[in-house]
């Protein structure tokens, strides 16, 4: 399983927590997806270790000006994994004030590549 976004990983962690808590119950919990159970079977590791592995993933924060499509997220996640590292997951938030472009937080560093300032400056120039 390829982890793309923080939301996906958080949901997976919740499922693993359920599995850990219901370890000794034979009945299948409806809150855990089949794909998750299959992946756990495939990996041949305990739910606890799988969770520890997920905790080691690094988070790449990306703030966008629009609500991205699944294809957009897939595109960005692939680019990041290829460029930054395979153990990186995407944490996407939306802020319409950015107009376009993105704000990035990586490894404790913040960079603004949005068009907010440019557009704001231009609008101010037109208004004044």
């Amino acid at each position, binding site marked *: 399983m390829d982890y793309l976004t923080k939301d996906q990983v958080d949901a997976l962690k919740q499922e693993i927590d359920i599995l850990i808590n219901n370890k000794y119950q034979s009945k299948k919990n409806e809150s855990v997806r089949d794909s998750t159970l299959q992946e756990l079977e495939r990996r041949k590791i305990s739910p606890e270790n799988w969770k520890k592995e997920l905790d080691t993933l690094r988070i790449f924060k990306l703030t*966008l000006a629009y609500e991205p499509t699944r294809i957009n997220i897939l595109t960005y996640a692939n680019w990041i994994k290829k460029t930054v590292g395979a153990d990186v997951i995407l944490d996407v938030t939306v802020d319409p004030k950015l107009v376009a472009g993105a704000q990035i937080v990586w490894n404790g560093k913040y960079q603004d*590549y949005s068009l907010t300032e440019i557009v704001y400056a231009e609008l101010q120039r037109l208004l004044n």
Partner: protein
Amino acid sequence: MTTETALIIGLLIVVSWLAYEYWRAYRKLLHRLKDNDHSSETAHKKATKILDEAQVEAVKILKAARTGAVTHRAQLGAKMDAALNAVADREIKDFKNALEMETIHVEKAVGQKIATRYDEVNKEVEDYKVKQMALVDQKVNKAVVQVAQKILGKTINPRDHQELVLKALEEAKQNGLFD
């Protein structure tokens, strides 16, 4: 002739002489008394005349004095009236001047205060106006910017957005953000 006869004769002569002298002295006395009486009467008349004249003169003087006093009093009264009027006029004039000066001073002070207060209020109003205009401008600008940002954000399609995001990621890479 005997001595006795001679003595008698001599005595007679002496007595006659004495009698004559007595008579003459008596006559002289009478004459003097007569003169005295006449002088006394004359003096009395003169005195009476002088007194009369003096009385007339005194009456004249008194009349003149009275007339003079009346005239003088009238003149004095007129002078005093004039002086009092002059003083009163001067006082009134001085008071009027002082009042005018004070009124002008008060008017000036009040005018100055009003002008100062007017300037202050005017400045406060101007400051408030400028402040409010700045606030309105700020709000309008903010609203316009927000609207513009929303419109621009929505105008750009997801494909263009993606292109701009990938461009941003490439730029971050070139800037060494991922090193």
